[in-house]
């Protein structure tokens, strides 16, 4: 984060950026939790400033607004957190069509190494059952933050993700898993700190699994681009 961008938080909070600058700053916010906190606080101060100008509107406006709302459908809750990511670049365009197992963000393709058995790195703990199932399919995926091993077992109906060789995150960040179907990401839970990884139900066909880095406790929607995305069908 450049300090120059950081100082835009004040101008952003009072809507003093051009549309282009505001958009760029919002993209920056997606990756800067500290900036989001600051913006939230500055917006609150600005809101108090605004409220200090309070003046009662003409009484007739009330009925007009209520009547208009009555005719206006409401938006459903956001279950398309991809809008937060603001780019569909990481959507699995090529998945299914290509043998590639991994679609990595920003259009960078990373090498992938397939194995029928867990590789030299011994898999233990919660992940082991899936990795050692008779019908286990496994893959090792390189990501910008280290490698991830993935195993699927149709017999068990489970998918296991071994995250031990991903870079250790600072205490306030966690890895979070998502199932992504038709452009909608649904949380599959966080990888608890110090855990080996995570076992989840085997996603249905056409659903991919993505991993993002989120604030501790996880997010309701991805706040950043996935470090890796896997189509379990191709594992």
């Amino acid at each position: 984060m450049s300090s120059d961008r950081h100082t835009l938080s004040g101008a952003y909070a009072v809507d003093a950026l051009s549309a282009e600058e505001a958009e760029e700053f919002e993209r920056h916010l997606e990756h800067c939790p500290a900036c989001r906190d600051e913006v939230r606080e500055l917006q609150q101060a600005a809101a108090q400033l605004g409220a200090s100008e309070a003046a009662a509107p003409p009484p007739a406006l009330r009925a007009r607004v209520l009547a208009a709302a009555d005719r206006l459908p409401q938006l459903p809750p956001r279950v398309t957190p991809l809008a937060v990511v603001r780019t569909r670049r990481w959507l699995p365009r090529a998945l299914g069509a290509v043998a590639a197992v991994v679609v990595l963000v920003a259009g960078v393709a990373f090498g992938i190494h397939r194995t029928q058995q867990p590789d030299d790195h011994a898999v233990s703990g919660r992940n082991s059952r899936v990795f050692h199932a008779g019908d286990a399919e496994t893959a090792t995926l390189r990501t910008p933050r280290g490698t991830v091993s993935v195993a699927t077992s149709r017999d068990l109906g489970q998918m296991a993700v071994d995250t031990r060789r991903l870079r250790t995150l600072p205490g306030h960040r966690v890895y979070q898993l998502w199932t992504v179907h038709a452009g909608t990401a649904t949380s599959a839970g966080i990888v608890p700190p110090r855990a080996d990884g995570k076992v989840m139900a085997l996603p249905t066909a056409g659903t991919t699994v993505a991993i993002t880095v989120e604030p501790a406790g996880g997010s309701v929607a991805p706040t950043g681009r996935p470090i890796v995305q896997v189509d379990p069908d191709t594992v």
Partner: protein
Amino acid sequence: VAEPGLRLVPAHEPPDVDHLVGRVAVGDAHAFELLYDELSSAVFGLARRVVRDPARAEDVTQEVFLEVWRKAARFDRALGRARTWVMTIAHRRAVDAVRRSESQRRQEEHQVTVSEVGRDEPVDTVLEAEERGAVRQCLDTLTELQLESVRLAYFNGYTYTEVAALLEKPLPTIKTRMRDGLIRLRDCLEGDR
């Protein structure tokens, strides 16, 4: 003035705006009415301050509440208080209205000097309107440049580039003054609570 042992309580608790927005999110029209009653003065007052024309401020107020109605289910408490969310929408809508229709006027105002701006919209007028004591007191803690920067952006709808031109200061200075001015306001208001 209370008797010893007695406690003054408000006649009725002000409604919890976060709670109301949660109910609006599930289509509760009554909650929407209560929300309007609670926030319409703040929204309308801000809109009128920014767009100047009361009739247009009414339109902006309507737009704001309709956006709140539409998007209530998407309000994320993790991102702040509902009251702030509504006021942020209100400010954005008001500023959009100003930028849309007054770009011509704005271009002309680029030419005016700082002293003319000061005469047109003296700080005293703003402060006189700050009958909410806390905000007024806290604004007094800002430096003149912080106050001018925040005020011209927030109440006049200028971009920081325009504010820099008006005040004849470098862009980075204005950016920084907006930020540290708001930080000072935030800290002062927090201390007040």
